[in-house]
């Protein structure tokens, strides 16, 4: 069952087409990651779902009801903002309680629900403090607790991890996933970080220029990109492209290996001139050229490679993706 349904959504700011025709269904309990570069319209799309912007065209349906004219508070959604947007003059308890106070609940049940949400996120000991007295990671948990305390139908998150430092971000990501599974709330998660999208999303919608370029599971997005934009945007480092006749050939850096290391028979052999080797511990990134096209290999196996020398590298045919030269869309071969 679709909890959120977008039909032909457009949002123009003057001449700027922030969102330019999007159809999207988000299923009950699903974790959908909206992934795209900055300016791709992903945050605008989320704000449209939240009701903080009104769409130029199209229908937004939440829980079977058209909500285009419904204000944010009546949409049954909750949102976690990038800056957390905690109320600086209220204690953590009052921050989490605010949506309930607005609803007009009595003190007893407010307290019960706040304690439930705080317990869920392990911030019970912080309730008496002010937002300025807790760390970034704790603020993020408070923001999530505040969003969840009303048990929303849809939880919207706008880059909630981007303000955390790299070390905390990893644990936060893991916790976020576990706990979303536990309470099973439908979640829309905006991010420009593909690791977050791949790690968290049940499905990923890759956006660019106000349009969804591809929507699918992380595996589909990574292994079967439908066009060169998705192929080039997802993956660090991105997919290598070389032109051959009328098609573009794409292959992931980790499938581009020294021929000796591949046991398969069906190979495409390429002459790889190595320019630079980056040793990153568990793997090496090898930058070089095929002909005059720049490509990268991601090598995690031991193999002697020297800079400014040529090697025989290969890609298994099954790892190669083909794209139309003109339109950049995927073609089967």
């Amino acid at each position, binding site marked *: 069952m679709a909890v959120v349904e977008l039909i032909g959504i457009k949002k123009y700011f003057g001449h700027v087409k922030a969102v330019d025709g999007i159809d999207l269904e988000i299923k009950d309990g699903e974790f959908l990651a909206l992934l795209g570069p900055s300016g791709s319209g992903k945050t605008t799309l989320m704000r449209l779902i939240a009701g*903080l912007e009104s769409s130029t065209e199209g229908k937004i349906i939440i829980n079977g009801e058209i909500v285009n004219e419904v*204000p944010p*508070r009546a949409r049954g959604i909750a949102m976690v903002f990038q800056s957390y*947007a*905690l*109320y600086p003059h209220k204690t953590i308890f009052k921050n989490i309680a605010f949506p309930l106070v*607005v609803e007009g609940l009595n003190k007893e049940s407010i307290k019960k629900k706040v304690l439930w949400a705080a317990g869920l996120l392990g911030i019970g000991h912080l309730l008496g403090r002010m937002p300025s007295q807790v760390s970034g990671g704790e603020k993020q948990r408070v923001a999530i607790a*505040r969003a969840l305390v009303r048990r929303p139908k849809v939880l919207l998150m706008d880059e909630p991890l981007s303000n955390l430092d790299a070390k905390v971000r990893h644990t936060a990501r893991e916790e976020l996933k576990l706990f979303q599974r536990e309470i099973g709330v439908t979640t829309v998660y905006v991010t420009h970080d593909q690791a977050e999208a791949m790690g968290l999303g049940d499905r990923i919608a890759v956006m660019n220029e106000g349009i969804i370029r591809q929507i699918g599971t992380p595996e589909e997005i990574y292994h079967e990109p439908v066009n060169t934009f998705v192929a080039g945007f997802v993956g660090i480092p991105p997919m290598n492209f070389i032109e051959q006749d009328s098609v573009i050939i794409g292959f992931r850096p980790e499938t581009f290996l020294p021929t000796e290391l591949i046991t398969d028979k069906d190979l495409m052999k390429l002459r790889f001139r190595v320019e630079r080797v980056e040793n990153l511990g568990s793997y090496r990134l090898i930058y070089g050229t095929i002909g005059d096209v720049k490509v990268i290999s991601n090598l995690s196996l031991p193999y002697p490679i020297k800079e400014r020398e040529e090697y025989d590298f290969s890609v298994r045919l099954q790892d190669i993706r083909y794209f139309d030269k003109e339109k950049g869309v995927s073609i089967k071969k």
Partner: protein
Amino acid sequence: MKERYLLERENILAPLLLFPVVIYVILLVGFPFVMAFVYSFSNVTVGNPDYKIVGIRNFIDIIGDKVFQKSLGNTFIFTFVSISIVLILSHILAEVLIREFRGKWLVRFLILMPWTAPIALGTIGYLWFLDSVFSPIDWILRSFGLLGSPDALLGPMSNMYWLGRPGLAMVSVILVHVWRLLPLGTVILIAGMNSIPREILEAAQVDGAGYFRRLFNITLPLLFPVIGVTVLFAALFTFTDMTVVWVLTMGGPPPHSTQVLASLAFLKGIQGGDLAQGAAISLFFFPVLAGVAAIVLGLVKKAVVT
């Protein structure tokens, strides 16, 4: 240390930059203040500068004086009502002016204009506006049938006499003063509102808060320090102001309906020639304003800490 780096040393640059201000304050604020203090315990008059200490007699005299009591009351009414109106109006204006709309520059220009006009000049404009015979406001009221006919809402007489009737004169004085303070309040509040992160207000919106809930639960508490500063400045400007009163009514209509402390001090000390009493009256500002400043700054500090 080479000489050309002299100006980069804080212990030299700081006193150097502060020097003009210190001179200014000593000459134009400190000296008159000390003189007022000294005069208020003496019998000095304009005609007779012989100096004789009379102790606190001046203070006893003025406290017992009915006119002084009336002026003190007027001053508090004038200040309190003006500031209340200024706060409400400037909040509304700030709310409007932080939005984008067509012709915003014109609205902003019109609102800021009172601040750029010399007070006395602007007030003289109002003096004509509120004239007892030729007031254009009265023309408008008359043409709408609100004034001048036997069954009119505002009475059968042909004019309102804005500055000639005790209650109405006070209203006029307050409204002109509000007109003058509004730009200051608006500008301070706009700055304060712009400093509230938009995401916080959006969070409140998503959390279910309507406009008034956001205003009273989020915006106003966060604006509190800024409002405190506005109140402090408005109180200083209002409590010590005599321009508006003096130009419009000179403290009248009798008996001293709009007399405030500042105009009374001028009336007694300069026009009446009794420098000592004038000084004693103006010294009344000091504890009141020091108190207001201390309270407001204390509240602001507390709000900032939490």
